């Protein structure tokens, strides 16, 4: 009897010691990505657990192959945009997105294919294929998008820790998957917040809700159904287009460089705003690829959101609007501010609160042309004139 009792006790102890470890072995990947355990074991007050989850997502989400259907809804001042798409991703770089027709969208059958080096966007409604090289193909750029993303992840995670309260708030079922619900609340007012659903098995975001600075939801995107690690042939990342379709090459942005280098590359002075919203740092800038709009694009980030600040010389507007925000509009969910000062025009694009952007706009000092292009062209004209004069004389002699 005693033997039986001892054996039962040993068996009970063994089971009791194994039970907490069992969920860890439910999937090899869950343990590989060291995501938090089952809901019963999740400590919702542990901010580090949430940080660990999003860190894994930042580092490894592109390494997960999947095939899925996804819904995107965007709310903005001019209305609502919605789209359903079929997505196939073969890690690490092949992605195909087919936008399906719906009553709320005019983008039906739009197809976008990316191989990490180029993106092709076929727009059947206007019979056009847009093509754009990734920045990595620019000759002056040593970093691929993947490299850049990796670099940004480290920097951005540090900024996110500093600027956001990251919390694991719940676990939910979504698209037949179990997910952690993580909230990213800004520590500084005036910034958008975000709520993300991260798959418990794979480091992958299943749903994103974005809220504007006023707390209203600005966008939601979620997977209706998803299959991880499917067998995907390379052939599905092939785009066949009819012969009469027009081709359009989209301009390519350069590499992000520090501001002092950017100013050297540009032939104009780049005034930096004295005020930047709390938590934001200047990443650097690039020269605009649009030759009709020569401008410097300076990027600021708080880790999660971006402010784009454009400085465009020589296309200033009417002086009556000088030093004042001359336009404020809501384009695709982003607020756009434009104003002029001197001969410069400035543009700010961001999802931040308008008052912060206005404050930033008002803190931009008067630009001083490094080399006035009007005088430059006159001096060039005179140089040419005298050169031709002497050339004619020499010919005559």
């Amino acid at each position: 009897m005693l033997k039986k009792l001892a054996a039962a006790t040993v068996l009970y102890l063994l089971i009791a010691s194994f039970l907490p470890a069992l969920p860890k072995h439910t999937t090899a990947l869950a343990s590989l990505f060291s995501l938090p355990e089952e809901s019963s074991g999740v400590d919702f007050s542990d901010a580090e657990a949430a940080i660990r989850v999003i860190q894994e997502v930042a580092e490894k989400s592109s390494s997960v192959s999947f095939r899925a259907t996804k819904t995107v809804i965007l709310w903005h001042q001019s209305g609502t945009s919605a789209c359903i798409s079929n997505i196939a991703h073969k890690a690490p770089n092949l992605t195909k997105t087919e936008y399906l027709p719906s009553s709320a969208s005019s983008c039906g059958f739009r197809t976008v294919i990316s191989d990490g080096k180029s993106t092709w966007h076929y727009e059947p409604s206007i019979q056009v294929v847009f093509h754009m090289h990734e920045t990595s193909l620019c000759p002056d750029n040593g970093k691929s998008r993947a490299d850049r993303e990796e670099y940004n992840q480290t920097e951005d995670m540090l900024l996110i820790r500093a600027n956001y309260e990251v919390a694991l708030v719940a676990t939910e079922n979504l698209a037949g998957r179990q997910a952690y619900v993580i909230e990213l609340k800004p520590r500084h007012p005036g910034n958008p917040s975000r709520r993300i659903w991260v798959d418990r098995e794979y480091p992958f975001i299943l749903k994103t809700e974005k809220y504007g600075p006023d707390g209203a939801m600005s966008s939601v995107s979620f997977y209706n159904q998803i299959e991880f690690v499917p067998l995907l042939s390379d052939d599905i990342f092939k785009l066949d287009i009819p012969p009469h379709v027009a081709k359009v090459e989209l301009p390519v942005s350069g590499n992000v460089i520090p501001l002092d280098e950017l100013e050297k590359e540009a032939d104009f002075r780049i005034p930096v705003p004295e005020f930047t919203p709390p938590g934001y740092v200047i990443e650097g800038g690039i020269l605009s690829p649009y030759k009709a709009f020569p401008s410097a694009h300076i990027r600021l980030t708080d880790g999660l959101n971006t402010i784009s600040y454009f400085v465009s010389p020589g296309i200033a507007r009417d002086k009556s609007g000088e030093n004042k925000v001359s336009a404020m509009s809501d384009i695709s969910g982003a607020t756009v501010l434009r104003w002029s000062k001197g001969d410069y025009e400035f543009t700010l694009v961001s999802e931040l609160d308008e008052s912060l952007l206005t404050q930033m706009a008002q803190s931009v000092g008067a630009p001083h042309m490094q080399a006035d292009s009007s005088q430059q062209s006159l001096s060039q004209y005179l140089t040419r004139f005298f050169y031709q004069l002497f050339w004619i004389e020499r010919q005559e002699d």
Partner: protein
Amino acid sequence: MIKNMTCEKVRSLLSAYLDRELDYHELRSVELHLIDCPSCQEECRTLRATKDLLGALDSPKLPREFWPELREKINSGSASDSYSRLLVRVLVPVAALLVLAILPLASATHTKASKSLTQARTNLVEPYVREHIISELDRPFSDKTSLGFVAAGQAVTMYSSDFLESYDHSAPHEVVTSSNRAGRRIQAEPFQRVMFLSPK
């Protein structure tokens, strides 16, 4: 500097514009005018069509004796050449002095002109919004489907507004973006860069 141009001025430059002979500032002035002026756009399309038609014609062959005869005429000179030489030797230096004398005045006028720069001819924000969206793609938690959806819409808007021009309607009709384990990489030939903001 970029100037407001009248329709008359723009039309006088259209031929040079289509032949890519304008300097940078003239080019931009013409392009910005064309954005807002449907009649000049139409004029530009007509002129382009005419040029295309003329360009399609065969160039007549010059007779063999053309170049030797031309060279002979140049070398032989004429009475008018003497006047030309006189003009060059006397009037050109005088003109140069005049230019130097009026330089400060011209510069001041020029600066004044540049200060009354372009009105807000365009509320074009699509390129800026698009650049902003592309920069957002680098963020670790960016929703690439949403951003791609918006960026694609911006590209369509820009194209539909004549801001982007297609480059080749007879290009290969198959685009393949794949590579296999053996490293085979097949891609469509890269499209040439197209002029941004030039009329179709």
